[in-house]
């Protein structure tokens, strides 16, 4: 009897291990991966996908150590990280699963509704400190940022601040929800959040990356036709060796059903 139990248990573990996949990494991608995993396992009863967060960097280092099958990331893999995997004799496969647009937001009562990249750089690096310098009322600018651990923080720094450091003493909030809450309460505030978090309590500004020639408001549409400039890819990384195991799930995410979930959550689907 005991032997029989043991045998069933081992087979069960073996079977579930065959289909078990681990997805780890970015907290931005986390809700998307969870939804995808849920509906994927609903469609394939034998499959088992575990999704955990921790941050893009955590996911990629887990992939290098072989403790996850897929690393979800809101930033591109770094050259050094790629090299590390190559030293181990494996290659990384990159699959963009969706896009995320970052909206720059202010308090709804703020009359400023247009900013250029240069103006935003000056605001977030502390050069401009009053709204009147960018066409607003005489009011102190209070920039809000995400915590240093977030991929959003890194992306905004690279893309908008051109790798310069944020102003010393920027308000940093632990979560996007907290940024929305704070900005809706603070008249002089400015911050950045994912498109999916936009609501009526705050106002998104139009941005220009060509020194003020054209301004674009953030929306799913403008992000899809590439007129909105602050867009980043959300990426799944896995190794060539484990491609066979993860393929069904990745294919599902890229399928029409998977991309519908992308849209429902508020990200931008890859298919045009």
């Amino acid at each position, binding site marked *: 009897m005991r032997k029989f139990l043991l045998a069933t248990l081992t087979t069960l573990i073996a079977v579930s291990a065959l289909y078990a996949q681990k997805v780890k990494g970015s907290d931005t991608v986390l809700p998307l991966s969870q939804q995808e995993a849920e509906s994927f396992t609903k469609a394939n009863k034998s499959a088992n996908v575990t999704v955990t967060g*921790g*941050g893009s*960097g*955590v996911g990629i*280092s887990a992939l290098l150590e072989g403790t996850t099958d897929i690393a979800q990331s809101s930033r591109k893999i770094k*050259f*050094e990280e790629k*090299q590390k995997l*190559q030293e181990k004799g494996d290659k990384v496969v990159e699959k963009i699963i969706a896009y995320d647009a970052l909206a720059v937001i202010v308090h709804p009562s703020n009359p400023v509704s247009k900013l250029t990249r240069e103006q935003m750089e000056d605001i977030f*690096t502390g050069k401009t400190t009053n709204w009147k310098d960018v066409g607003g009322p005489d*009011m*102190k600018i*209070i920039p809000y940022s995400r*915590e*240093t*651990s*977030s991929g959003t*923080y*890194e992306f905004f720094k690279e893309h908008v601040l051109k*790798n*310069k*450091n*944020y102003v*010393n*003493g*920027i*308000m*940093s*909030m*632990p979560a996007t929800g*907290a940024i929305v*809450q*704070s900005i809706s*309460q*603070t*008249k*002089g*505030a400015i911050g950045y959040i994912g498109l999916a978090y936009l609501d009526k309590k705050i106002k998104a500004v139009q941005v220009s990356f060509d020194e003020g020639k054209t301004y674009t408001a953030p929306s799913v549409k403008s992000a899809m036709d590439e007129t909105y400039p602050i867009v980043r890819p959300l990426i799944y990384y896995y190794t060539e060796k484990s491609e066979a195991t993860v393929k069904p799930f990745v294919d599902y995410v890229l399928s029409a059903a998977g991309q519908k979930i992308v849209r429902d959550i508020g990200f931008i689907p890859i298919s045009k």
Partner: protein
Amino acid sequence: MRRFIEKTIENILRLSGLATTIIILLMVVFLFKEGFGLFKNPVVERGHVLCVNASNKIEYLNSKEIKLIFDGKIENWNKLGGEDVAIELFRFNEIFSRYSEEEFGEDYKKLPEKLGEVISSSPGMIAFIPKQYMPSTQQVKALAEEKIGGADFFGGTEWIPTSVPSPQFGVLPLVLGTLLVSLVAILIALPLGLGVAIYISELASYGTRKILKPAVELLAGIPSVVYGFFGLVVLVPLVQKALNLPVGETAFTGSLVLAIMALPTIITVAEDAMRSTPSAMREASLALGATHWQTIYKVIIPYASSGISAAVILGIGRAVGETMAVLMVTGNAAVIPTSLFAPIRTIPAAIAAELGEAPVGGAHYQALFMLGCILFMITLVMSIASELISKRQPGKGV
């Protein structure tokens, strides 16, 4: 047989005492070992090197200068004692936009050579590249590698741990922020807490006490995230409007939340101490003609003073180490506090917010452990001090 069982129980108790002590000691050792590893790190991100053109006279840059250069705040070498040449920044990833993948050859063998070409082509260039791709040509030289020093850490005024290429680990803003918030919190909570404790223990009727005491204890059971959320949604706008401030996330808001959180601890411990005053003393005082109030502050409070100071220590302990609530309401801006009504960042908030993404074993990770060491020292000093104070209390052991 019974003797044997008793002996065994005794030994188990002894062993568990020993084990706990050893575990605590080991934890402290681990904390300090990880923390002091920070000072073995170079000021430039580990595994990377800063290269300049060989014609450049500069041999060494400190962490602050590197940051200012890469932030575009220092734009000419003559400000650093070099020649009058404009500084040109080069980050490693830019190499991939200057050359195509094929030009690097197999396994990026030609990468150092190409980097050498770029750096030697411009006399004012400073390049931040991985050590393994350091060009071997004579026209490029690497800047001397400095280690992070104690002065940079303990005396530094900027906390930007993710600054590339040279992270800034100045703890002064964090330490001062933590002390300020905790101190103000205790200043708010102590009079309130003692007042409530005296009321519950001496003045309240039996029925009121029966309702009030559990209600206060219930406060202690609320998770700190809930306090933080309450603070963010209710207190932050309230403070902002009431004091007409540009931002509501301030040190003062943090102190308010912490004061509310420390109240149950202070009230419960102080009240227990007061109630443990023997009724003989109380009655003796009243019998001598003292009024109720005179009895309270001449007899009961002195008698309970050691308990009250314990309440204060526990309250401070709660305030200094509190993480989540403070993280949500203080704005987390790492600046040296100049006013109570400006945002600050505390040590526990910094550890909680940053440990998740700090690469294990890296400089940032070790810097966070070092912060843990500082926090540990603060609480240690506080408990020793209060121990000494309560020993000197003349009223103790009346």
